[in-house]
């Protein structure tokens, strides 16, 4: 998200609402065109009535409050007419290469009508209510990369503005936010009896877009090890650069203190029902308070040499993992001049192939070196294979099942990497060294996917999720959060071990604020002051 907004700021993008044909209930079509220096992209939005018993965040939904397409360029009337019959059908529709992203969203029933009626009555919505939810609509899927016929990734990978991973998808979400803000004002105005007031700017900026995320993200992480490696490598590189800074300049310390204050408020406003996450937030609040104490005394680590490294080491020694990660995010904010350029290293278009010249002994040794964690799992213990990942026949919804009580394990997705590596390793130990890898894979093609992975991850050292993804202790939620964190998502709000909600673009500049000097300063969004 930050990468996208920085680019829009740097390149003076404009966002124009070119069509807004909504009725008094907010139903109809709208088009928003985002114009960069070389190209334009348009969000085509369709809002339709939805019965309450149809409103679900699940993939199995058949209808939504709104559906969206990111069109490559500016759509003609006939394009909009074509999309009007297809976009609301989502997965059941077919799309063209001129469309880049397909998405849909549902209204927050807690907030949309409340904001609408407030504005219609001439009053601003209560900030506490806005804080509680943080968005007017929640996306439930954002599809790109050729899904359902939309343009392939290869089509946009060479364009600087969309070369970074998921930039087209995030541009779509940003424009959806614009739509929701306009839509709620439009409905409020239509329903008011002359008392309508527009949503006050700081409140508007505080509203992002929600997202409901399920299991679909987890297989993506497993099947894109090089990409994941690049993301983590960039993050580690960024942290290393900051930790190597020799002295903290006074303005950096001031900035850190200011961010700490903002971060503490952000944590205070981050409310969740999930008990595990709630406990974690409490722990992080207390951890951030300790960091504040550390840097507020005369013997602050910030007056030492390599101050940020010292602070990080202190956090590593005594604070929770979540607090450590929180601190890392703060540290990276301090030195955009050191870290922002790493955003250009996040993409991967490559694909790996098997190095069949590797000897069986070398392969075995690679496993011992990089997959010790997998070899140590006792797969004879039933709990170690308690679960299986699968795709349901019902709208291809990804699901997580119990191997011992549910049918379908014979069709599981190949995500049990630890188990598969261990199986391969056991076979290798009883295979004649004289057999070449090519000969071995000819006889045992069932190991091909895992051999490719092992070899690729010998180079992509952060590419593997080092956990048993079918074990009884596996919490898929962690995988979802891991990926969403790289998007810049905030207000992680788990709804179960398999499902979470998040907020995107909360606090991000509005379209007419993209030119502002502080357009990039919206990390740890906080509620505005009431006025």
């Amino acid at each position: 998200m930050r990468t996208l907004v920085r680019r829009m700021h740097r390149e003076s993008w404009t966002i124009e609402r070119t069509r807004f044909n909504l009725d008094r209930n907010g139903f109809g079509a709208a088009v928003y065109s985002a114009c960069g220096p070389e190209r334009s992209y348009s969000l085509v939005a369709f809002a339709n009535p939805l019965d309450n018993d149809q409103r679900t965040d699940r993939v199995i939904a058949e209808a939504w409050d709104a559906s969206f397409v990111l069109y490559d360029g500016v759509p003609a009337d006939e394009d909009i007419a074509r999309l009007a019959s297809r976009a609301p059908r989502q997965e059941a529709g077919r799309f063209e290469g001129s469309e880049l992203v397909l998405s849909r969203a549902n209204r927050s029933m807690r907030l949309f009508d409340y904001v609408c009626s407030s504005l219609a009555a001439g009053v601003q919505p209560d900030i506490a209510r806005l804080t509680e939810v943080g968005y007017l609509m929640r996306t439930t899927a954002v599809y790109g990369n050729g899904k359902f016929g939309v343009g392939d990734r290869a089509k946009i990978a060479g364009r600087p503005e969309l070369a970074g991973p998921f930039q087209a998808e995030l541009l779509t979400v940003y424009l959806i936010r614009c739509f929701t803000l306009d839509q709620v004002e439009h409905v409020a105005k239509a329903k008011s009896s002359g008392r309508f007031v527009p949503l006050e700017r700081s409140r508007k900026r505080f509203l992002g877009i929600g997202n409901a995320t399920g299991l679909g993200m987890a297989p993506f992480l497993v099947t894109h090890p090089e990409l994941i490696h690049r993301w983590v490598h960039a993050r580690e590189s960024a942290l290393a650069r900051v930790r190597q800074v020799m002295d903290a300049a006074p303005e950096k310390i001031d900035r850190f203190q200011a961010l700490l204050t903002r971060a503490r408020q952000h944590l205070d406003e981050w409310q969740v029902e999930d008990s595990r996450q709630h406990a974690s937030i409490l722990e992080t609040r207390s951890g951030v308070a300790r960091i504040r104490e550390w840097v507020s005394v005369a013997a602050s680590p910030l007056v030492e040499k390599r101050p940020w490294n010292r602070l990080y080491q202190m956090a590593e020694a005594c604070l929770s993992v979540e607090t450590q990660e929180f601190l890392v995010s703060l540290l990276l904010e301090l030195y955009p001049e050191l870290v922002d350029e790493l955003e250009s290293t996040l993409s991967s278009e490559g694909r790996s192939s098997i190095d069949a010249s590797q000897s069986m002994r070398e392969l075995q040794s690679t496993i011992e070196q990089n997959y010790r964690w997998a070899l140590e799992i006792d797969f004879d213990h039933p709990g170690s294979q308690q679960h299986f990942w699968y795709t349901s026949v019902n709208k291809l919804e990804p699901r997580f099942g119990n191997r011992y009580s549910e049918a379908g394990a014979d069709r599981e997705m190949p995500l049990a990497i630890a188990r598969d590596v261990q199986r391969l390793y056991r076979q290798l130990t009883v295979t004649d060294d004289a057999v070449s890898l090519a000969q071995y894979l000819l006889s045992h093609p069932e190991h091909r996917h895992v051999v490719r992975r092992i070899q690729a991850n010998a180079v992509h050292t952060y590419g593997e999720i080092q956990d048993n993804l079918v074990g009884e202790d596996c919490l898929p939620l962690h995988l979802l959060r891991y990926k969403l964190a790289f998007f810049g998502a905030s207000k992680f709000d788990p709804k179960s071990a398999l499902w979470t909600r998040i907020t995107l673009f909360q606090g991000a500049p509005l379209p007419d604020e993209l030119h502002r000097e502080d357009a990039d300063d919206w990390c740890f969004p906080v509620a505005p002051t009431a006025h």
Partner: protein
Amino acid sequence: MHASNAEIETLTCKAAVGVGLPAGLAEDAGVAAAWLSGAGFAGADIACRAIENIRKGRARPVIISGHTASLCPDTKGKLASVMYAAPSLFDFLQTTSRVTVARLDEPLLLFAHLVCSSSVRAMELVLHSVGSTGKVLQGVIQRGHGRLEGPPFSDQEAKNGSEVSVTMVGGSQDRNFKPTKKESETRRAAIQRGVEVTEAIWAELQRLAAHTLVPESATSKQRGAGAGMIDND
């Protein structure tokens, strides 16, 4: 109908898994099918035929035939499945300069596989295929590019298989190999607009891919995704 290259790759992969192909081989098949489609060939049709060959038992996995660089079907009288043969053939080419396959069912898919793999390993290869009617298909493959000489084989050759050899070109004879203007335009059009696939082939691939899906149950629907059925909050 129109499909994206990613869809061709993904659906081919799932359809291949649906008939029992191991995941690693299915992934390779998907990539090769998408490359063929993007090059203007009927990639989905060819991949579908190769998958059906496996499902119907017409084509079989390959084994080494006496000599380490010769592959043949593991069952007499059957065809060698390209989905098994292509990845193995490329594996062997990394340690030997010439590999042959007897009675290969779909040489074009092998060609595509070699093109895709050669980009990763930077290899230069020549494919020579003789069909059952004596027709010759020759292809040059160099660092992710490929060019065929001779018309694509007919169904007859596909039915009876082809004798194929692939040779690594030591010192390159054609280091400046570049796609022709027409090849580039075809590829660019596929990237810009996707490719055309017949609805019948698409439906068949989907039918085969459906074997990877788990049937619905009440438990699965209610608990499998970890979310409720209604979200009016």
